[in-house]
Structures are given as structure tokens and as C-alpha cells.
């Protein structure tokens, strides 16, 4: 353990509390310096009560707010190997697609355990994600409990939403951005599509796949009852009035009635422990709108 001898740097000082007592058996011990990459992974670590073992996070991990105090190792697809190593992790739990691959290879070579968590925008996807994070952290039992509970809550929220939508589903158009009148909508095979359907709505842009720009005419013909957007904290790129002033929305039912739902991005699209709440919230909003 030559590394322990140098305690001059900040990180080594921080590490001393951990390494000092466990230096002899560090290899066998549970990983105690964990970097979570991906907002839902970070949320699961917190939901499992394992946040004290976190030493770093990626740029997308912003919930719960206390995670912001941890060092940010950058955007999950553009990790810097030395930056990641500088917080001296012994385990990295990363959402599928983190990279670049060269960085991941160097990290593995440096002896850091690297676990990739696969992503699937479904109820089962969330459940599997929780189990996988639990296994990586060595807290399988707590994870199983959380997984079953989260699965049941999503089922409950979904069936409530489906019941409420029996007398007609709202057509929902997810708008990722609407800058310069260029409107990017969420089609099939996106997180937005999954959450809309789980909340008992119909994706008005279901005929395209992925996040795609859509012409104003095509948007008018999708006839959404309501627009769904992400609420970027303190950064309202498009005000509601401006949005409904766009020709694309003026002729739609959503535009005529000025119906817009904004929800926080990681909450709405993260597919993590809070997804059941997101489904319930979205469904309630949809009900309120179709009732009005």
C-alpha cells in the first residue's frame, strides 16, 4: 500500500479516515470510495442509504441536492481518466453508455472496479437497475427490498393512471427544445414516450423514433392536447407565452387552451427510484387537464 504513505494531498487526507483503519485488508473490504455515474444510479445509491460511500458523481447527478457537494468528474460520456482517478475511487458504478471506451479501459487497468448498469425505460428496467446497483455495492438484500417496493409503486401508479384514463387518453407531445422555432419532439423509443404511456397518455409524436426535429405542419397534425417539457432550473429557455405563439402550436388543442406541463428532467425521464412519483404526478396533471 504505497499509496497510503503519501498523505500530503487533500484527497489523501480525506482518504485517511477510510484507508487508515482498513489499509491492511483494503482489497477484500467492500468498496468504500464509490463514484456514481448517471443520475438514476446516484439516486439509487441514496435510496439504498449508501451515500456515505460516495466520493464523486458525474455532471448529470444533481439529486438529491447534497450530492452537489461531491466532486463532479464531468459529463458521463466524456470522462477524463486522470480526473476520475484523482478522487481515488475503488468502485465506479456507471450507467450504460458512459465513456469514452479508452477512459474506461484505463480505469479498469488502474485496478478500479467498473460496473456498467444497463438502461431500459420500463418498469422492469428500473427494478433491474436497482438490483444491479445493489449487487455492485454489496447490499443485495436492501436492493431487493427497494426493487420490489419500487416495482409495486410503479405498478400502482400505472394502474391508477390507466384507470383514470379510461374515458379518453390525453395526447401528449414531449418537446425537448423549441429554440428558434426549431422544435425537437420525443418520438417512440425515448424515455419521454415510456413515461407518457406509463402515465396513461398517448404520445402524439409516436410515429417518429427518437428525439427528432418536427416541422410546424407535422406538429399541428399530431393534435396534442397538452405539451410536456422539461423544467430546467433557472433557465426558462422558452416562456409559455412565446411557446404558444409559435405557429406550430397555435392550431393544436394544447395551444388553443394553453396547456403546458413542465417537470424536472431527471425526475421525469430518469427511470430511477422516483419514477413512480413522476408517473403519479404526470397522470394527475393529465387528469386535471382533461377534466378542465
Amino acid at each position, binding site marked *: 500500500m*504505497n499509496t497510503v504513505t503519501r498523505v500530503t494531498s487533500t484527497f489523501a487526507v480525506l482518504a485517511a479516515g477510510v484507508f487508515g483503519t482498513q489499509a491492511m485488508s483494503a482489497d477484500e473490504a467492500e468498496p468504500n470510495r464509490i463514484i456514481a455515474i448517471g443520475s438514476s444510479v446516484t439516486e439509487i445509491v441514496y435510496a439504498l442509504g449508501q451515500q456515505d460511500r460516495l466520493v464523486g458523481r458525474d455532471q448529470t447527478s444533481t439529486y438529491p441536492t447534497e450530492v452537489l457537494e461531491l466532486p463532479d468528474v*464531468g459529463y458521463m460520456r*466524456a470522462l477524463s481518466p486522470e480526473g476520475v482517478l484523482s478522487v481515488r475511487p475503488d468502485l465506479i458504478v456507471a450507467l450504460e453508455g458512459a465513456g469514452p471506451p479508452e477512459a474506461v479501459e484505463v480505469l479498469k487497468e488502474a485496478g478500479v472496479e467498473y460496473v456498467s448498469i444497463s438502461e431500459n425505460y420500463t418498469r422492469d428496467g428500473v427494478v433491474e437497475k436497482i438490483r444491479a446497483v445493489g449487487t455492485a455495492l454489496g447490499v443485495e438484500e436492501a436492493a431487493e427490498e427497494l426493487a420490489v417496493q419500487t416495482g409495486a409503486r410503479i405498478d400502482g401508479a400505472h394502474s391508477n393512471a390507466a384507470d383514470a384514463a379510461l374515458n379518453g387518453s390525453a395526447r401528449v407531445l414531449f418537446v425537448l427544445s423549441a429554440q428558434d422555432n426549431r422544435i425537437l419532439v420525443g418520438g417512440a423509443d425515448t424515455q419521454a414516450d415510456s413515461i407518457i404511456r406509463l402515465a396513461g397518455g398517448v404520445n402524439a409524436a409516436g410515429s417518429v423514433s427518437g428525439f427528432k426535429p418536427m416541422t410546424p405542419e407535422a406538429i399541428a397534425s399530431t393534435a396534442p392536447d397538452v405539451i410536456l417539457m422539461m423544467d430546467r432550473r433557472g433557465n426558462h429557455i422558452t416562456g409559455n407565452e412565446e411557446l404558444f405563439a409559435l405557429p406550430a402550436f397555435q392550431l393544436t388543442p394544447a395551444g388553443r387552451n394553453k396547456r403546458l406541463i413542465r417537470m424536472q428532467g431527471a425526475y421525469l425521464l430518469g427511470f430511477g427510484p422516483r419514477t413512480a412519483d413522476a408517473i403519479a404526478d404526470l397522470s394527475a396533471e393529465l387528469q386535471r387537464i382533461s377534466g378542465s
Partner: protein
Amino acid sequence: MTLAMDHDGLNVAPRDRRVTARRVTLALFVLLIVTSVVSVSVGASNASLSAALADLIAGRDISDLDRIVLWDIRLPRLAMGVLVGAALAVSGVVMQGLFRNPLADPGIVGVSAGAGLGAISAIILGSYLPASILAWTGNGLIAIAAFLGGWASVLLLYRVSTRRGQTSVATMLLAGIALGALSGAVSGVLVYIADDQQLRDLTFWGMGSLAGATWTKAASAAPIILISVLVAQFLARALNGMAMGEAVAHHMGIPVQRSKNIAILAVAGATGAAVAVSGGIGFIGIVVPHLLRLATGPDHHRLLLNSALLGASLLLGADMISRLIVAPAELPIGIVTAILGAPVFLWILLRRHGTMGM
């Protein structure tokens, strides 16, 4: 627009300028060594070069973290930074000489557009390739595609602008713009069908980075860049001659067409390989030659060597900023070179305007 030149011609630069140029070469050499040592010594982690060397000398084992950070992360990155910086700066000098235009950069012969299209195709369509090819290329797929794309577009441009054994640089310039637009359009189609993650990969590729530096990448790019940069050193006389016009150069006994061929090949090799391993890094190819022309005049004999040295040092400096400024995360180096390079470029333009009446 011609290169800034002394009244007494290019080949017979004043003696004091030659002496200055030699001193500048020496100074740039020292600068490169200093930046290299600093570049290996600093980083987000507290791995330390001096500690590792002390361990080595004392016969102790270097700690694992020091070994990985120094040997597998910082050193390949240093090697790639030196190669890419030298390649971009020398390509800039050659292009500006060949096109007799101080604003020319390697983008003009279509390398960047072609390489960009190659990289974008690999990012978006790479997964459709047969598994055997993917297994062989591994992580290098984007780099290989970018390199091939760069070469393909240079060859195409060369064919278009060469008639009866004569390459017209004017045609090449215009055809380059057309080819760039076409590459942009095809890239646009690919971007349209890209998914969310691929789009982010594209964005980051375009901003350039040395973060993906590995020994494999550095070793693949090294022979191509070294040969191209070396070959370019022998173009000095031809570029000096061509600065006065191709007809004059021809009468001076310079093999104009052969020099053009060599220049285009060298630029395609150096820039193609540099862009392939590091993505889009701008401004080095314009700012470095200009700074040196201000210091030592337009004679290509020293300019080519000095540009390689200064380009390498500047890129290492920019890379240090990109690694440290938001540590432990990293700012793409293309952003750093643009933030530093664009104001310098503007300053050069204003200065030129004042002194020479462009």
C-alpha cells in the same frame, strides 16, 4: 494577397533575421522541453513525477496510481499532444505558402471536412459493420474512419483540380468549399438519424480532445505525422519561391508541380492523422505560423521547424488548461484553443491591417 515579404526577397533574408530565427529555434526547443516536463508533472490527480523518479532511483516500486497516471495517461497524452500540435502548425505553414493566403488552413484541402464525415459515419453507422471488422478496429474505428475520410476527400479534390498534370490551387480552393458543403449535407443526414447518445458523441468529437490518448493511438499516428512533418521541412525553398507566384518559382528552377504534390500529401498525412486521433482542434494551424512570421519573417527555412516546435508547445499548454481548469472533469481542448486562438488571430489581423494595409 501575398505573404508579407522583405523587399530584398525571400531567399536572401537579412543576416540578423537568420540569426534571430536560429535563436528562436533554440528557445522554442527549450520551451517544448519545459512544457513537456510540466505537462507530465501536473494533472487532476496527485500522482507526482518527482515522487515516481525518486522511487525509481531509490530502487523502490512506483505506486500503482503513479505508474498508471504517468505511464498510461499522461505520457501517451504528451506524445499525442506533441505530434498533433506539430502536425497542425506545420500543415498551416504549408497551406498558407501553397495558397499564398495567410488565412489558409488545412481545412481548405478538404481534410477536415472529409475526416469529420468519416468520424460521424463511424459514430452513427459503425454498429452496422460486420462484427469481424468491429473486433479488428476496436476503439480505433472512429479514428480509422476519420483518417480514411480525410484522405478520400483530399484525393477527390486533387483529381478535380488537376488538369493535364497541372494542379490549380484556385480550383482546389473553390472545389474545397463545394466538397465541404457536400460533406456537411451528408453529415446532416447522418445527424438526423442519430440517437441522443450519438449526437452527444458527435458534439464532443467536434470539440476535440486528447483525453482518449493511448499508446496505441499515439503509435498509430506517430509514423504518419513524423514522416509528413519531416517531408514538409524540405519544402522551404519551393514555398519561398511560390510566394512570389508560380511562374516566378518555375523560372527560379523550382519543380512547382512536384512540390505541390508533396505539399498536399504531407498536409493530408499530418492533418488527417492529427484529426483522426484528436478530433477538431482549431486555430493552432493559423496562430502559430503567424506568431512566428511576426518574430522571424516569412522565410520558410526556419518557419517550418519553428512552427512544429511552437505548435507542439502551445497544444501541450492548451491541454494542461483543459485538464486542470474544471478538474476532476475536463474541458475539450478545441474550446481552449479557440478561446485562446481567436483573440490572437483577431489581433494579428488588426495589426496587419495597420501596418500593411491589407
